[in-house]
């Protein structure tokens, strides 16, 4: 048992990957789902174990094969990613419970074994992205998650063949992004001879004035990661991919995929390249900040004009990612804190929204558009009210966790006297109400008199767990704020722990 727990950082990644191989060959959907659930329950237990180790001993560095850096690959669990690790395992479990009926409805039963296999691959590789401490290892996990995501997205072709085009688009753009990232890794390796992040920080001190090669490498890495985390204007793959994927898949990706990559992105910015302060400030002020603002407005405005609800939510995700990168581009403690708070909160909000819309999708057996959901507030009251709560959280109503995010973002902007940005963010919140209201109006205020149909508890219970958690974290926000402040302190300190 001890050996099992000692290797917990590795097991959280390896276990899903291993079981993916087994699950692929299981013909029965129910058995495949069951094995997946068991794996993920063990995953949650391991994450809890990691949390308790972290609280007792501080940061954990796990070296594969006991090879020390710079020869070996290591995983690091520190203040920055412990919060996301817990959220990740909890959310993935809930999403998988939700996914069973959705998969049954949208995916061929004989493909379901493979679907769960890709699902586990995606989970394992995303967890690897969260934990890894080696820059090339990130590329490997990035590609595993991309390939499994693409396969999962293309499974949506059963409902709509556009999923294939979306998957192909994502494949090309994602591969370009990942390859740019590798070029950056190449430059970094050429200059320092190491791939381990902690070691990289130490080695980079010999180039404290900064060499062109290092800046070039950094730029490639950052751009590559921006492609994968859908920062404007490298976001074009996201809306088709999220809207044509099977509903459970959209849920998983919208909630967690881009967040995991953003955490690594932030690590590179603030830990590895923090010694090049001028370059960092240049990047943050002149590239990340303006792009975030544009992302917020473009995402929100395009969302207002969307009829297809999944596409609307995808564009809304782009806007929300804009809020996260905006918060991170504020170079001090408060900004980074706000960024982490919004990462956690948005994962829950978007997860909940896609789950609720997913249920409407399988009930409709057609694209969920503003026209087709008219009056569904009366037909599916339980799911619709959950959707309402998640939507209210998205626009940031007090007593929901979206409000807490907005509060911390505003605080960070205010302390740094970025008043124009405050005005723009306030304006965009008002714009977001427009597309949220369009959905609510169609759901609840239409004249079609539907009778309430019975809804499947296996689906609405996970949705309501998420919806209740939004209100819970809106009122008792201390746990999220604490995890975020641990993360931001750990990040700003320079990561040499």
């Amino acid at each position, binding site marked *: 048992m001890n050996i099992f727990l000692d290797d917990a950082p590795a097991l959280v990644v390896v276990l899903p990957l291993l079981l993916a191989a087994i699950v692929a060959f299981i013909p029965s959907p129910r058995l495949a789902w069951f094995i997946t659930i068991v794996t993920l329950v063990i995953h949650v237990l391991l994450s809890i174990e990691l949390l308790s180790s972290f609280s007792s001993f501080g940061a954990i560095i796990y070296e594969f094969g006991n090879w020390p850096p710079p020869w070996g690959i290591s995983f690091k669990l520190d203040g920055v990613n412990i919060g996301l690790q817990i959220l990740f395992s909890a959310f993935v479990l809930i999403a998988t419970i939700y996914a069973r009926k959705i998969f049954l409805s949208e995916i061929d039963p004989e493909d379901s074994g493979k679907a769960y296999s890709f699902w586990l691959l995606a989970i394992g590789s995303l967890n690897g992205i969260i934990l890894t401490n080696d820059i*090339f290892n990130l*590329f*490997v996990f990035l*590609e595993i998650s*991309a*390939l499994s995501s*693409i*396969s999962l997205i*293309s499974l949506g*072709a059963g409902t709509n*063949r*556009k999923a*294939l*085009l979306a*998957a*192909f688009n994502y*494949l*090309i753009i994602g*591969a*370009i992004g990942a*390859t740019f990232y*590798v*070029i950056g890794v*190449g430059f970094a*390796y*050429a200059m320092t001879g190491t*791939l381990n992040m902690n070691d990289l920080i130490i080695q980079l001190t010999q180039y404290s004035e900064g060499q062109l090669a290092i800046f070039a490498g950094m730029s490639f890495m950052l751009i590559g990661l921006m492609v994968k985390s859908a920062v404007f204007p490298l976001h074009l793959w996201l809306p088709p991919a999220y809207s044509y994927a099977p509903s459970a898949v959209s849920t998983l990706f919208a909630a967690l995929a881009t967040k995991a990559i953003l955490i690594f992105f932030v690590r590179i910015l603030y830990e590895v390249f923090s010694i090049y302060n001028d370059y960092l400030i240049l990047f943050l002020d002149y590239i990340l900040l303006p792009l975030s603002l544009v992302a917020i407005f473009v995402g929100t405005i395009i969302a207002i004009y969307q009829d297809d609800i999944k596409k609307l939510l995808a564009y809304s995700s782009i806007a929300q990612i804009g809020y996260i990168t905006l918060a991170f581009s504020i170079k001090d403690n408060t900004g980074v804190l706000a960024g982490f708070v919004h990462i956690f909160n948005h994962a829950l909000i978007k997860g909940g929204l896609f789950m609720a819309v997913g249920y409407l999708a399988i009930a409709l057996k057609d694209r969920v558009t503003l026209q087709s959901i008219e009056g569904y507030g009366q037909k599916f009251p339980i799911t619709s009210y959950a959707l309402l709560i998640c939507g209210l959280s998205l626009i940031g109503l007090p007593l929901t966790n979206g409000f807490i995010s907005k509060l911390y973002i505003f605080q960070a902007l205010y302390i740094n006297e970025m008043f124009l940005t405050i005005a723009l963010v306030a304006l965009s919140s008002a714009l977001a109400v427009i597309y949220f209201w369009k959905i609510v109006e169609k759901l609840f205020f239409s004249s079609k008199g539907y009778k309430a149909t019975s809804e499947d508890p296996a689906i609405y219970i996970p949705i309501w767990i998420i919806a209740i958690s939004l209100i819970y974290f809106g009122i008792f926000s201390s746990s999220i704020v604490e995890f975020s402040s641990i993360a931001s302190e750990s990040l700003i300190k320079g990561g040499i722990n």
Partner: protein
Amino acid sequence: MTNLLFFWNHFAFIILMVSGLFIIITSQNYIKKIVGLAIFQTSVFVFFVSLAKIIDGTAPILNSTNNVYSNPLPHVLILTAIVVGVATSALGLAIVLQIYKNYGSIEENEIKKEELKENN
């Protein structure tokens, strides 16, 4: 600073990389896009491996005469990357096959026309 020709591997890398990107962006045929992607990825492999060569270095196997070895680590990394590239191309081709089955064509402009017809 020796003459520019010393950095021929950088130039090869840049030419291949840009060619690959150009093919991806301008091709209408999906299979050509995948080929472009493969060229783009190969350029990176070429670059990395060329970085591994140390002047006067020999193969990284212990022998008694020579003390300078070329760096094996980039080769290892590139092996991984090649595998990833192969998987990506394979997946891409599988998707193209499905696109062909569903749309009857693998040319981007024809598929766009189909999409427009479907929307109207």
